[in-house]
């Protein structure tokens, strides 16, 4: 695997992989296979920043007297990127993200980045109590959306599934000779077991007519209204548009935003339709489990559990969803 990764790096593609810094594992651009982290359950942030950066320039402009020139972003300059050692739930996040960025307006920046990205997942060897991919239609060995999936075997070998043409194209010549048939290998034996706690259909049903339920306030009393959950989430796509303007030019910048912030829905006229944190918590859950399934035919949650690990006050999503699923 190291040899393969090494030749991918040498090929000039940008290779992004989980890297450990201090006590956190996060995705970063790597220059050597030795940088790739082992023995962790989940990166802190999702991989969405490589298709939807935390801040990106939409266009820039120059002013010269009355003349204004606008420079679009040159998407040809986006690098070909291999996202290495994603989990299946990272890839699952790209489906809702793609649906949002192509709902009516086709977002050229998102689409250009996505088209230049190849997804290499590693089936999960370990999970923790925050993981619930199996409850939202995924699983630790799920291959949906991956270009390649790798399952590490106990003897150091790896089972490599080449799923798409993009994935097949990733197999470098030097590594082709190192492969043999995978017949008879049962990958389920080597991956984590994640229990199914509820189904998305159950949640969708329970959410119908739940708008005025007291459960939102009960669950969200402690929520602080920060953006941690949304920013680490692989599917949260809300953004803000900001101006970076100077005397002779400027840039328009798109940056992550969160429906958990109290000012998120503040209208220019001063009215705010979501004045309480419970209304904002309800929006978070309904958006992912009601509005997105209804409008985009995709669930807005991959079960990665990042929000719950990142939350300063332990808003544990799988606990809250299990409660919703069993609510009368």
């Amino acid at each position, binding site marked *: 695997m190291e040899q393969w990764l090494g030749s991918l790096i040498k090929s000039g593609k940008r290779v992004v992989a989980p890297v450990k810094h201090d006590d956190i594992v996060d995705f970063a651009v790597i220059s050597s296979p030795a940088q790739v982290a082992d023995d962790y359950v989940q990166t802190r942030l999702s991989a969405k920043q490589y298709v939807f950066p935390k801040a990106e320039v939409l266009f820039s402009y120059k002013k010269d007297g009355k003349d204004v020139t606008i420079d679009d972003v040159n998407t040809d300059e986006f690098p070909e990127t291999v996202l290495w050692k994603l989990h299946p739930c990272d890839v699952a996040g790209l489906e809702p993200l793609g649906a949002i960025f192509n709902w009516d307006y086709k977002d050229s920046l998102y689409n250009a980045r996505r088209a230049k990205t190849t997804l290499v997942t590693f089936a999960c060897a370990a999970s923790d109590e925050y993981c619930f991919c199996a409850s939202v239609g995924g699983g630790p060995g799920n291959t949906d959306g991956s270009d390649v999936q790798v399952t590490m075997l106990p003897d150091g070998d790896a089972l490599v599934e080449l799923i798409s043409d993009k994935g097949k194209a990733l197999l470098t010549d030097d590594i082709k000779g190192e492969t043999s048939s995978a017949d008879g290998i049962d990958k389920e034996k080597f991956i984590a077991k994640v229990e199914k706690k509820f189904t998305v259909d159950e949640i969708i049903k329970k959410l119908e007519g739940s708008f005025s339920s007291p459960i939102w306030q009960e669950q969200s009393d*402690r929520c*602080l209204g*920060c*953006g*941690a959950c*949304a920013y680490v989430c692989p599917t949260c796509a809300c953004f803000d548009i900001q101006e970076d303007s100077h005397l002779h030019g400027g840039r328009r910048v798109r940056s*992550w935003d969160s429906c958990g912030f109290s000012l998120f829905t503040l209208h220019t006229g001063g009215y705010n339709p979501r004045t309480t944190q419970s209304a904002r918590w309800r929006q978070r859950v309904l958006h992912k489990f009601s509005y997105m399934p209804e409008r985009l035919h995709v669930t807005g949650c991959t079960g990665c559990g990042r929000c719950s690990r*990142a939350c300063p006050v*332990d808003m*544990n999503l799988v606990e809250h969803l299990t409660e919703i699923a069993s609510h009368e």
Partner: protein
Amino acid sequence: MSKLSEKAAALLSEGTVGLVIGYEQGTHGTRPKFCRKAEDAATLILNDKCLNNIGGYLTKPELIGSGKVAVTATLAVMRTVVQLTAEHQLTDGNVIVLALDGDEVLQMASIDEIKKWLAAHPEDLSDENKALLSKLKALSREERWNFWINEMNKCIKCYACRASCPLCYCNRCIVEVNCPQWIKPWAAPLSNMEWQINRVMHMAGRCVGCGACDRACPVHIPLRLLTISMAGDIKEAFGVASGTGNIDGNVLSSFKPDDKENFIH
């Protein structure tokens, strides 16, 4: 039921308070718990693993309403109540503080009582923090700058540091003011640095040293090093301990005509 749960349940059923804010066991550590009915109080716990600063909820009208509330308090929460009262965000007597003395429950209803308790229970910096701080101070200016730029690179501008801080109660934070835009609101190394410098400057003399900001940061930026250093500087320059409800300590929002510096006259 523990004595603490009994006390909280009694306050609720007698109608003395409409809400008790405390802690319960969470997924790994403890987490805040809101009790509105006597039954809710059964799971309350209070020990040195209670690290969220629940004093921050006391300034949120949507949670508190207009009645009296009780809060189960660690020393950091007590300091918060004292500081928030000094800043006129709480009314002395409206918040009942429940604390533990061994396994006895103490009910404190006035700031003076809380101050007395705090004076008798001073908290010092942990050895770990002392060591980190002296390591940082030993760096050259340039090394220190690089250390912080490197840390600030990680910031995603989620504002969990702000949301978890009980002294960050502004309805509109300086980062949300856009006419003029003081700080660029998107995540970028320099604007992340500007954000933290502003946050900590606003905390000058007010920070109660609870460490909530630091623990809330999802990317583990060691924010406590900033707030602890700031508290040290305030102590040194103004002789006031930060976050003790001494309004002279709010050094960036108090002005004295007889100030010893004369450039501002």
